[in-house]
């Protein structure tokens, strides 16, 4: 075998591979399967190549592979999203493993690992995720030390890495607290297109049911006072005006102008921690009176709209009136509130005409339709049969979805009931609109706050009654009364909704698990509120308590200066602490000897560097016989201490005393 062709695997490759795996693994749920497979294959190859001494692919092959993987990663992700960015980074790091040849390659790979860990800041910032990131940083740091100082096992570098992190942590926390936070971005936010579950700005049949299968947290709410009763917890999100026979949309009508209110009778105040959902609206308890969030407005239909999409977690205060009806001007209502497609759903239209004819008034008509929903065999289900047009039926089937639901399938989720109800209202000339949001929420037994999940997604209806304004009507509550009293899982027929949080079905274990999850959520909520939600406002609060006002314009300059001074002082203090070392023990014997030589040098008898103590004694004795006895004693003591076996504080101090009293005078 040709010796020169034998591949010598890089000695650091396995620890680096470990670091790469540790920092890439948590991203796997967010990148495409394709990228996951590519990473796993490359890792496997690198591990085997290092164990079996296979040769690594040539530069041309790696370049080709990199190009292919790059294209693959870009095409399996939609556009330049955070996921695509992380996928590219993961591919890049994996490819880098294949071409590690020099120290610089190793360093670059490890530094990219840090970058990959930090890239995870968009995916999850719970306590668990943060701890895992810290653990990854510890491992990567140990590997970085190993790369710089190979030899021995990489594991022995864990301790210095831990020491380094522990020393850095206080400084990092000070910086975290003091670094000025700016509200809103400075450079204009790049579009983060992270796939989030949440409401889009339109609803078709089946959309909410699909959303409700997710148990992800939508938002958490802390009430200043008691939590209102469960069936009053309507979380208003987006208000839908337009209907094209198939989909409810926000419509194009202007919603500018301020909303109108009756007098607020019973204000409820609360704080919402909203998880990002990539849309513009924010959720508030029905009926919202005000929300304290910058760049967010309460529109005239009482939905709250934020200038920027919610791409990061936001915290805001809200005030609502539980009993409030929403007054509105008639001319703003009659146009969009009665819009319907010209044709379609003839049976529903005739039903509306019949019922309205019997009822006589709008109020009575609302009750009549609710009674219709209650009395006819309607079913509440998460898996409604599809109402899509059957092939061959043509566009007529598409146009008659409401008919199909009301008279044929009769099985639906909340959006079916709300949408059909609104259709029946409009068909009879009563202005109506669909509101999408959440209903209910689960109270955390440890924190007393409310957790609203995607499974609490709900759609209801609002009807405009002359003299009163918009009144909430929830036909789902008629069909499935349990929905409002408990939650979706409680209202569903047995066997459905097993994926939802219905732990009570699993007995003691379920109870224990529920408690544990509740505790975790409690701590995560605190973490979200006080650490991850640390804002410019909190910072101002801290500085205000320290006597440094930051909130006014002139104060900012001073404040910034103070922050910089504090940072510099911290850094200086830190460097002092680190650089001060214990002084080495003073060599008393050498010091005494040097003193002695200096005294003799002063009278012209300097010791030459090549003269040992005994030679020096001879030299001095030759030049100055009068000094000889004293010099001899000192030299003898020195030699005994330095080269002989004599030891001890006593002898050293004797030598020191003799040298001190030795005062040769010039001849």
């Amino acid at each position, binding site marked *: 075998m040709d010796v020169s062709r034998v591949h010598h695997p890089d000695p650091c490759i396995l620890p680096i591979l470990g670091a790469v795996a540790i920092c890439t693994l948590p991203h796997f749920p967010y990148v495409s399967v394709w990228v996951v497979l590519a990473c796993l294959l490359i890792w496997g190859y690198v591990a085997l190549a290092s164990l079996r001494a296979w040769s690594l692919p040539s530069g041309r092959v790696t370049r080709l592979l990199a190009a292919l993987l790059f294209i693959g990663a870009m095409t399996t992700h939609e556009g330049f999203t955070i996921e695509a960015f992380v996928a590219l980074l993961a591919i890049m790091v994996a490819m880098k493993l294949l071409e590690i040849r020099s120290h610089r390659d190793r360093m670059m790979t490890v530094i990219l690992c840090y*970058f990959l860990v930090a890239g995870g*800041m968009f995916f999850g910032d719970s306590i668990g995720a943060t701890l895992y990131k810290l653990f990854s940083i510890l491992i990567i740091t140990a590997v*970085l*030390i190993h790369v*710089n100082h190979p030899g021995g096992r990489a594991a022995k570098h864990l301790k210095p890495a831990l020491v380094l992190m522990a020393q850095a942590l206080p*400084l*990092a926390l000070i910086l975290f607290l003091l670094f000025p936070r700016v509200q809103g971005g400075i450079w204009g936010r790049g579009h983060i297109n992270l796939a989030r579950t949440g409401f889009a700005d339109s609803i078709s049949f089946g959309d909410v049911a699909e959303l409700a299968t997710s148990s992800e947290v939508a938002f958490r709410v802390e009430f200043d006072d008691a939590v209102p009763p469960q069936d009053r917890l309507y979380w208003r999100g987006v208000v839908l005006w337009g209907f094209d026979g198939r989909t409810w949309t926000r419509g194009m009508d202007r919603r500018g102008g301020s909303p109108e209110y009756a007098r607020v009778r019973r204000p409820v105040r609360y704080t919402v921690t909203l998880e990002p959902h990539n849309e513009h609206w924010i959720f508030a308890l029905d009926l919202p009176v005000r929300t304290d969030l910058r760049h967010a407005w309460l529109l005239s239909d009482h939905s709250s709209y934020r200038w920027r999409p919610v791409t*990061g977690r936001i915290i805001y205060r809200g005030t609502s009136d539980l009993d409030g009806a929403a007054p509105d001007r008639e001319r703003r209502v009659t146009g969009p509130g009665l819009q319907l497609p010209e044709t379609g759903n003839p049976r529903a239209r005739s039903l509306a005409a019949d019922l309205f004819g019997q009822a006589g008034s709008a109020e009575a008509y609302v009750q009549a339709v609710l009674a219709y929903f209650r009395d006819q065999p309607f079913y509440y289900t998460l898996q409604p049969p599809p109402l899509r047009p059957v092939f061959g039926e043509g566009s007529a089937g598409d146009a008659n979805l409401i008919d199909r639901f009301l008279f044929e399938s009769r099985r639906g989720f909340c959006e079916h009931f709300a949408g059909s109800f609104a259709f029946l209202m409009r068909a009879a000339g009563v202005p109506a609109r669909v509101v999408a949001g959440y209903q209910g929420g689960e109270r955390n037994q440890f924190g007393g706050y409310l957790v609203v999940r995607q499974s609490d997604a709900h759609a209801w209806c609002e009807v405009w009654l002359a003299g009163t304004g918009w009144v909430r009507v929830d036909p789902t509550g008629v069909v499935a009364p349990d929905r409002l009293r408990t939650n979706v899982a409680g209202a569903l027929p047995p066997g459905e909704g097993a994926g939802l949080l219905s732990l009570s079905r699993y007995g003691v274990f379920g109870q224990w698990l529920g408690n544990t999850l509740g505790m975790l959520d409690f701590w995560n909520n605190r973490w979200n509120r006080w650490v*991850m939600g*640390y804002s410019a406002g909190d910072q101002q609060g801290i500085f205000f308590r320290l006597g440094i006002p930051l909130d006014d314009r002139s104060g900012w300059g001073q404040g910034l200066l103070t922050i910089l001074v504090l940072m510099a002082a911290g850094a200086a203090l830190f460097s002092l602490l680190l650089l001060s070392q214990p002084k080495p023990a003073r060599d008393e014997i050498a010091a005494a000897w040097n003193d002695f030589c200096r005294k003799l040098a002063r009278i012209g008898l300097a010791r030459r560097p090549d003269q040992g103590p005994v030679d020096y004694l001879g030299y001095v004795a030759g030049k100055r016989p009068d000094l000889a006895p004293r010099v001899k004693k000192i030299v003898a003591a020195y030699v005994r201490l330095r080269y002989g076996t004599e030891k001890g504080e006593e002898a050293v101090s004797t030598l020191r005393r003799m040298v001190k009293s030795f005062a040769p005078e010039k001849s």
Partner: protein
Amino acid sequence: MNGSVFSFLFRGFPSSRPLPHILPALPVRARGRWIALRVTRPGFVFLGMLLILLFGSINHGNNLGFLLTFLLGSMAFVSLFHTLRNVSGVSPAAVRAEPVFAGQNAVFAVALQPVSRSRPSLSLHFPGGEPVEAHLEAGSRQTVNVSHPAAKRGMLTPPVLLVSTTYPLGLFRAAARLPVEASCLVYPRPLDGPLVPARARAEEGYSAGENDGPGVEDFVGLEAYQRGDPLQHISWKALSRGQGLHTKKFEGQLGRIIYFDPDVLTGDDPEQKLSRVCAMVLKAEALGLAYGLRIGERLIEPGQGGAHKHQCLQELALAWT
């Protein structure tokens, strides 16, 4: 000792080739010694990454991003002091070097003072020389062989010994300049050629006698071995017979006296002549001849043995300087 005073003076750091010349080094006074501090190339990449992370965190108002950025930044900052501490206090106690021929590497054995803390991954080098890795254990005396190319004959005196380290993270390199008072004698580079002795006749001066080379001497007999006898003349046969160490004696070995003199050689380049003579000295010593040396006014009486060879080579190394 005010060992922790930062001094933000920029000072040139000449002839420190292995360090990347991206920025002038920042000298820091630590424990009374100037230590140059540089950001390594990966260090710049790391700092660039921190900057990107900081901008990202500010722009997205992401507190987890802030936390990670500040943690990584603080770790880099702390590692800087670990790097400084790793070189501060390292100093040579004694340095010595065996003579070498020009073209070889002079190896300086640097005995380092015992240190109170262990110093992993030190790199020692002379300006222009190859770096040597060393790991000092706390309290132990350790000698590190640092080489320096010996390009030309004479006294090789490196101005300074550089001790540098990138421990622990490899993001910064701290380098201390340690004054060393050590030199290495560099003999001329031997240049093979015919043995050209210049026979010394006290009054005659020299006559270039190419034919007067040492012929094959006649074997006279064995004498008891004495220290200094050339190894080549030991009678291995006698030794193998168990008769002890004996030296073969040749007629004419003591009678003939050879002198070498660069001036009798043809050629223009005096350095080349010295190199020729150097090779002749080595050959004569190997053959067990007695030889002397004459360079200009300086005369070395004929002799034999290691000490004599060294004296001659030293004379050649330092000739005309």
